[in-house]
C-alpha cells in the first residue's frame, strides 16, 4: 500500500487500449464493451454511487462519457473502441496512489492488445472475445477509504494560531521505501525517512484549525513548520503534540478511512547565539558585485526547517539556536545581474556543530571551490534512449532540473552545495512514462534509494542505468 502512494500522480487510473490501437498485432472486433465493478479495497464490498468517467486519451476530458455505479458497484460502457482513460471517484475514497487532486488516477497500462488478464495496484482487468467477435473488457477497480488528520494549532498560551503552516510527513523505511521525492529527508541513522505527503502542507484557518485528507494507511507526523509574519522569534517549529524533538514526537498510525486529531501546541524557547566566519579562498571575497555568501543552518534531529543568514563580509551570527546538533552550510553564489535569479554556486563549505546552553563564538567554515558532477547514462536492453529530466532533491539544493539528452550518454550536474543529494529521474515531459532508473551507481554503491553526499571524491562519476519495463502487463 505504501509503495502505491509514491506512484506518479499524473498517470490516469487506467489506460485501456482496445484492440486496433497498437500496430502489432492488429485484430479487428465489431464492438467493444467495457464493464466494471468498483469495490472497497478494505472489505471488498461493492461501492454504489461512485462516478465513472471514460475519456479519450488524446484530448483530456473533452470527449468524456460519464456514468455512476449501481448498488452492486457495477457500471458499463458500450462501443469503447480506442484508447481511453478511466477515472473513478467517490467522496471519502481514493484510488491507491492518488494524489491530493479529486480524481483517482494512478496506474498506467499499455499494450492490452490481446485477450488476457491484466492487473496493477488497485485494479484488475480481463479482456476476452466472445463468439460474435466482440471484445469484452471487465475491470475491477478498488477504491480505498482515505484517512484524515485534523487538528488545531495553539500558541504557548493556548490561543489559536491562524495562517500557520502545518506539514504532514509520512515516516517510512529507506530500504524498500518509495522512490525519493523532492523534499524527502533521510533521518539520522539512514534507515528511516520523512516523506512529504502530496497535499500535506496546509495553512490553519482563523481558528487555528487544519485538515489534511487523502492520506493512505501509514505512519505520520504532524508539525508546524512556518509561522505567519510577526510572530515571536522564539516560537519553534513544533511536532505534535508539543515538542521540537522528533524522537519525542507523536506517531499517528492511520488505518484506511480513519480520522485522527493531531493538535499542536507551539513550543516557545530561547536559545544561544552562534557566531563565526565563512572564509573565502585566498584572494577571493565572499561578497561583491552580484556575489553573496549565505549560511544555512539545519538541525540534524529536527527536520522541519532551515534558517539562513547572510554572511556580512565574512562574518555570520545566528541568534536563538536551541541545544542540539546542527549542520552549517555556507555557499557563495555568483550571479551575472539582478535578472539572474539562479546564478552559480562557486564556493561551499559544511560542518557539524553541537550546540549546548552556552553561546558559541569563533566558528570558522573554510569555503572551497565547488565542482560539477559528471555522469553517464545507459539504457537497458530493448530501451530506446529517450530524453530525461533529473530532479535534484536534498538538504541544500538550489539547482533547477537537469535536462539530459538520452542519445548523448553523458551529463553534468551543476555545482552543488555540500550535503546529501537524491536524484529523481524521469522521461521529459511528453516522453514515454514507463522509463525508470534501474540503478544509479557511484563507484561500487547503488545510490538510487539512499542518495549520496557531495562533494564527491576526486574522479568519481555517477552512472545511471535506465530500464523501460511497463507497469502492469499480461500474466
Amino acid at each position, binding site marked *: 500500500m505504501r509503495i502505491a502512494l509514491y506512484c506518479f500522480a499524473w498517470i490516469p487510473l487506467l489506460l485501456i487500449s482496445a484492440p486496433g490501437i497498437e500496430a502489432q498485432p492488429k485484430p479487428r472486433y465489431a464492438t467493444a464493451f467495457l464493464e466494471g465493478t468498483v469495490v472497497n479495497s478494505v472489505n471488498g464490498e461493492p461501492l454504489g454511487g461512485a462516478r465513472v468517467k471514460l475519456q479519450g486519451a488524446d484530448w*483530456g476530458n473533452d470527449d*468524456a462519457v460519464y456514468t455512476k455505479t449501481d448498488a452492486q458497484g457495477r457500471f458499463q460502457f458500450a462501443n469503447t473502441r480506442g484508447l481511453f482513460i478511466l477515472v473513478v471517484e467517490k467522496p471519502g475514497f481514493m484510488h491507491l496512489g492518488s494524489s491530493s487532486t479529486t480524481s483517482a488516477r494512478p496506474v498506467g497500462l499499455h499494450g492490452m492488445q490481446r485477450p488476457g488478464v491484466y492487473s496493477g495496484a488497485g485494479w484488475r482487468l480481463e479482456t476476452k472475445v466472445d463468439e460474435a467477435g466482440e471484445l469484452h473488457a471487465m475491470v475491477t477497480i478498488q477504491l480505498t477509504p482515505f484517512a484524515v488528520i485534523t487538528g488545531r494549532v495553539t500558541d504557548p498560551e493556548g490561543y489559536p494560531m491562524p495562517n500557520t503552516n502545518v506539514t504532514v510527513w509520512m515516516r517510512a523505511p529507506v530500504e524498500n521505501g518509495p522512490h525519493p521525492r523532492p523534499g524527502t529527508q533521510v533521518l539520522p541513522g539512514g534507515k528511516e525517512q520523512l516523506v512529504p505527503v502530496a497535499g500535506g502542507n496546509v495553512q490553519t484557518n482563523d481558528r487555528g484549525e487544519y485538515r489534511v485528507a487523502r492520506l493512505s494507511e501509514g505512519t505520520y507526523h504532524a508539525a508546524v513548520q512556518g509561522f505567519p509574519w510577526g510572530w515571536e522569534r522564539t516560537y519553534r517549529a513544533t511536532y505534535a503534540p508539543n515538542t521540537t524533538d522528533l524522537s519525542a514526537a507523536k506517531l499517528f498510525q492511520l488505518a484506511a478511512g480513519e480520522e485522527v486529531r493531531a493538535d499542536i501546541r507551539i513550543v516557545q524557547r530561547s536559545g544561544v547565539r552562534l557566531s563565526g566566519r565563512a572564509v573565502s579562498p585566498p584572494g577571493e571575497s565572499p561578497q561583491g558585485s552580484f556575489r553573496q555568501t549565505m549560511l544555512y543552518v539545519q538541525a540534524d534531529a529536527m527536520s522541519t526547517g532551515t534558517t539562513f543568514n547572510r554572511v556580512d563580509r565574512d562574518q555570520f551570527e545566528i541568534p536563538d539556536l536551541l541545544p542540539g546538533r546542527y549542520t552549517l552550510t555556507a555557499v557563495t553564489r555568483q550571479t551575472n545581474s539582478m535578472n539572474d535569479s539562479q546564478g552559480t554556486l562557486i564556493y561551499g563549505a559544511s560542518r557539524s556543530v553541537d550546540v549546548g546552553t552556552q553561546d558559541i563564538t569563533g566558528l570558522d567554515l573554510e569555503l572551497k571551490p565547488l565542482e560539477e558532477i559528471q555522469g553517464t547514462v545507459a539504457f537497458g536492453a530493448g530501451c530506446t534512449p529517450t530524453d530525461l529530466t533529473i530532479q535534484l532533491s536534498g538538504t541544500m539544493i538550489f539547482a533547477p532540473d537537469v535536462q539530459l539528452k538520452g542519445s548523448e550518454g553523458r551529463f553534468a550536474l551543476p555545482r552543488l552545495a555540500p550535503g546529501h543529494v537524491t536524484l529523481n529521474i524521469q522521461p521529459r515531459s511528453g516522453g514515454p512514462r514507463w522509463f525508470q532508473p534501474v540503478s544509479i551507481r557511484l563507484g561500487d554503491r547503488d545510490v538510487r534509494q539512499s542518495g549520496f553526499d557531495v562533494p564527491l571524491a576526486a574522479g568519481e562519476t555517477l552512472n545511471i542505468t535506465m530500464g523501460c519495463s511497463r507497469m502492469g502487463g499480461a500474466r
Partner: protein
Amino acid sequence: MRLPVLMIACSAMLWAQRIEGDVYDRLTGAPVAGARVFIQQSGTAERLSGRSDAAGHFSLTAAGPAPRYLPATILRDGYLRSDILMLSAQDGSAIEVRIGLTPQAVISGRIEDEDGFPAERVHVLAMRLTAANDRRKLKQVQTVLSDDLGRFRLSELPPGRFFLYFVPQDMSTTGWDGRYTAEYYPDTLDVNEATRVEVRAGQEVSDIKMKLTRHEGVTVSGRLAQPGGSAPDRFRGIALRMNGPAGQGTVRGAPMNADGSFILLHIQPGTYTLMTTNSYNAALGETVASMPLTVGSSDVPGLELQGRIVQAFDVAGKIVADAGSLPGSRIVGLIAMNGQRKLVHSGLDGSFVLKGVMPGTYRVYAGLTTDSRSALLPMGARLGERIIPRSEPLELDGMPSEPLEVLVADLSGQQPVRLQDASGRPVAGGTVRFLGASYETEIIAPTSATGETSVSAAPGEYKVYATTAPISANLLDDPDFLAAHQKDFAPVRIAAGKNQTLVLTLMER
C-alpha cells in the same frame, strides 16, 4: 459618526520608551483579552511584543531609545488585524494608547457539484466593487480553498457586501468535467446577475450552499501557422486568457497537435485573448501568436493564428520624477503577469537598461534601494506619446523605439495631523484618510496615543476624512460608503516639503 473640522496648529515632538495600552471591542466597547501586540522597531531586528490581560490592558517597555515612529500590529482571533502608528514620546514618559479592534466577519458554506459530490479544491473569492479612477472594478478581498468535504470559510472579512466567485481548481484537462467553470453565487456566469452576500462586523454567515453547474459553452478551434511552415514543437500549448471583470487569468489550455491545430471546448461567452504558451529557448527564440477573441453563443471554428519568432530584446529607459526632481538610484523594472521580474538598479540620473526582455504584458515597477532618501510612487509609464497609467498593463511586443519612461510621483509632501475631540482632547486609535481628488488613491494613517499622525504624499489636492468608527479597510473599495459620505470629506492641499499640522476635530453626529 464624528466629522472633522480643520484647524491649523503646531505639532509636538515627544519621546518615551514605555507603552501602556488598552484593547477594546469597537462594537461593544468591552475590553479584549489575549490580543497580541507587537512593535517592529524600524531599521532593527528588535521586536517588542505582549498580550492584553483580562482587562484588555498591555504594557511594553523598549530596551533602548525608541525611534520616532513605532508601528504596532494588534492580532486577536475573531478580530480584524489592526495596524497603528504611534509617535514615541520625547520626554521619556509613557505612551498611552487605546486600540479598538473590529470583530471580523465570516462567510462560510459548502460547495457541491451536480452529482451532489463535495467540490474540493475550489478557489472561493470574496470580491467587492471598487471605485478606483471613477471606474467600478471587482477587487478580491479574501480567498480560500474548499476542503475535501467541499467546505469553505472566508474569515477576516471587513463588514460589507461581497460577491462570491467560485473557481474550480482543475478547469483544464485534469478536472472531473470540463464543463464546470468559474461561477458567481448563487449560480451565474454573469456578475451582473450575481447576488451579493452582506455580512456585518462580528457576524458569521454560515449557510452558503453553492451548487456548481455544468455549462456546455462553445468550441473554439483553429490552427497555428508557424513562420516558414515548420512544425510546432512538442511542448507548445495553446491557452486562452480571459479579460473580464474578475481580472485576467488563463481559463483553459490545451495541447496543440503536430499540425498546429487546436480545439478548446466549453468556452463561455466573453472577451478573451487567445495566445500560445511556451518556454523561451535562448538559441531558437520563441514562436508567439495571440489574437483577441469574442465568444458568443456559437462555436468559433477555423481560427488562424499567425505565429512569429521573437527574440528577447533590451529596454532602455529612465525614471522621471514629477516636479523635475532627480530620482536617484532606484530599483526599476518590469514585472510580468506570471510574476517573473526584470529588475535593475538605475543610475543616479534614473537611467536604466533592462536586458533580455521577452514580448509580453508587464507592470512597471520602481522601488526603493537601501540608500534611497525619499519615497517615490510609480504612477505609470510613457512610451513616446503613449501614457500607460499604473493600473493598466504595459504590452511590449518588441524593442520599443522610444525610451521607456517610468513616471514616479515625488512623495515629498509631509503632512502632520492631529485628531482631537470637540473638547480639544487628542483622539487615539482614530483613522485619518486622504483621498485623491478623483479617488485615484487613498492614504490611511492611524492616530497615536497623542492623537497624532503624519503622511507622506505627492503634492496636490486631497479630500480628508477622519473617524473612530469601524469602517472598511479601504474606502475606495466601498462605493456605497463613498456615495453616502462624500459631503463629509474636507478638501485640503498638501504642498511639497513639510506642511503645517492639520488639526481635525471630530464632531458627534
